[in-house]
């Protein structure tokens, strides 16, 4: 039997990896993937807690997170496509039209 802490620690590790990816990666697609990693780390924690409390609240939450994340990514990819059309690059460092 794997303890509750194991799930929480795994999800925390995944979340931190995702957060580091968002901050350190320069490719917009990889940044998105890192955000997804963070969200799925949270999903893992939610499902684990849901099992611990033997309720369904956490699982319902996960449903919503999955769908909303898909909508969010769709919008983000559409934005990347438009940016690629003008800049011919998806490196987020090219986004410095405005100072600071």
């Amino acid at each position: 039997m794997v303890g509750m802490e194991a799930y929480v620690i795994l999800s925390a590790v995944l979340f931190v990896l995702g957060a580091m990816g968002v901050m350190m990666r320069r490719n917009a697609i990889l940044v998105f993937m890192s955000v997804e990693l963070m969200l799925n780390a949270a999903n893992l924690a939610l499902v684990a807690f849901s099992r611990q409390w033997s309720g369904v609240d956490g699982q319902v939450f996960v449903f919503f997170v999955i769908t909303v994340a898909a909508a969010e990514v769709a919008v983000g990819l559409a934005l990347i496509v438009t940016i690629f059309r003008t800049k011919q690059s998806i490196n987020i460092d090219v986004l410095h039209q405005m100072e600071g």
Partner: protein
Amino acid sequence: MNVLSEWAFIGVFFVLAPILPAVPILLGGVLSPKKPNAIKQATYECGVETVGDTWVQFKVQYYIYGLVFLIFDVEMVFLFPWAVAYGQLDFFAFAAGVLFIFLLSDALVYAWKKNALEWA
């Protein structure tokens, strides 16, 4: 002991499973006539033959199509529980599901009118 016998069952599968596809392939190799020519040797590809570099830019339209698919695909997660419990739902729960499908089709109509479903 009991657990072990359950695993043994899977072990038998592991042994038997490769044999099933291997036998026809071997038999085919032994029995079939061999008359190779250039077209037969070419990599199988459906549709028209490829011309030029395959690493070309896709039309943006394909991305939009993909994005629309992504959304509809994921929204199905809400319909699964509804469909599984379908036989036990009262009319209101049924109507809620129908409303959800209506909202999805609302978005589909929008995408359609905006030509997001056009391939060409």
